[in-house]
């Protein structure tokens, strides 16, 4: 049984995440990787910086893993969220889950990423190609006026 959630400063090793949840009783393994995109909201992005309220963010990540475990009868979860400066195409988050059956793996993985985005105190500052930087506010980006 793996119930593992942490903030990391070094690049996320997705193969290691997969290995941590693999067991012979798990027929389905699902890995979600969030990646720094080169464009957001129409602006060219050159890099990203994640900062966290670290003790609380680590605890919330752990709570999410445990809650997912209960909710989806999941025994194998490994989550890593990167903090610090990230280059384009680097992974900001890796979520590996494994379950005897695929339905639960898909539901759990999706639930986990939505919870992470909803409640883990982590903030993202985008660095733009024009040299400016800005904290990203997802509540604003979702507003129709922004389209």
């Amino acid at each position: 049984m793996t119930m593992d959630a942490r903030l990391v400063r070094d690049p996320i090793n997705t193969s290691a995440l997969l290995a941590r949840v693999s067991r012979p009783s798990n027929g389905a393994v699902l890995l979600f990787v969030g990646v720094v995109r080169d464009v957001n909201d129409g602006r060219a992005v050159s890099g990203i910086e994640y900062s966290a309220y670290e003790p609380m963010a680590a605890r919330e990540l752990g709570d999410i893993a445990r809650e997912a475990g209960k909710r989806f009868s999941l025994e194998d979860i490994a989550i890593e969220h990167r903090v610090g400066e990230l280059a384009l195409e680097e992974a900001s988050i890796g979520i590996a889950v494994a379950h005897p059956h695929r339905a639960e793996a898909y539901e759990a993985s999706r639930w986990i990423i939505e919870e992470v985005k909803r409640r883990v105190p982590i903030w993202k500052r985008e660095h733009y190609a024009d040299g400016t930087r800005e904290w990203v506010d997802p509540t604003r980006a979702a507003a129709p006026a922004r389209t």
Partner: protein
Amino acid sequence: MSVTVLLFASYADALGTSSLRLDLEDGSTVRQLLGRLRERAGAHALPPEPMVAVNERYARGELVLAAGDTVAIIPPVAGG
């Protein structure tokens, strides 16, 4: 009583600090703390009801604070 206030990301930028101490009357709530915080320069950046965590747990405005609490004002989160 004295509590510690933590500010992050855009809120820290707006208020010019990531941490400060506030002296409040005993029995003050989170909402009363926010009222005091709004007296400071840059506090216009705070929304009417920002997310707040007390001692690393999300808390509502009516929560009564205790001496020594750590109150984090949480900007819209953007992890993932």
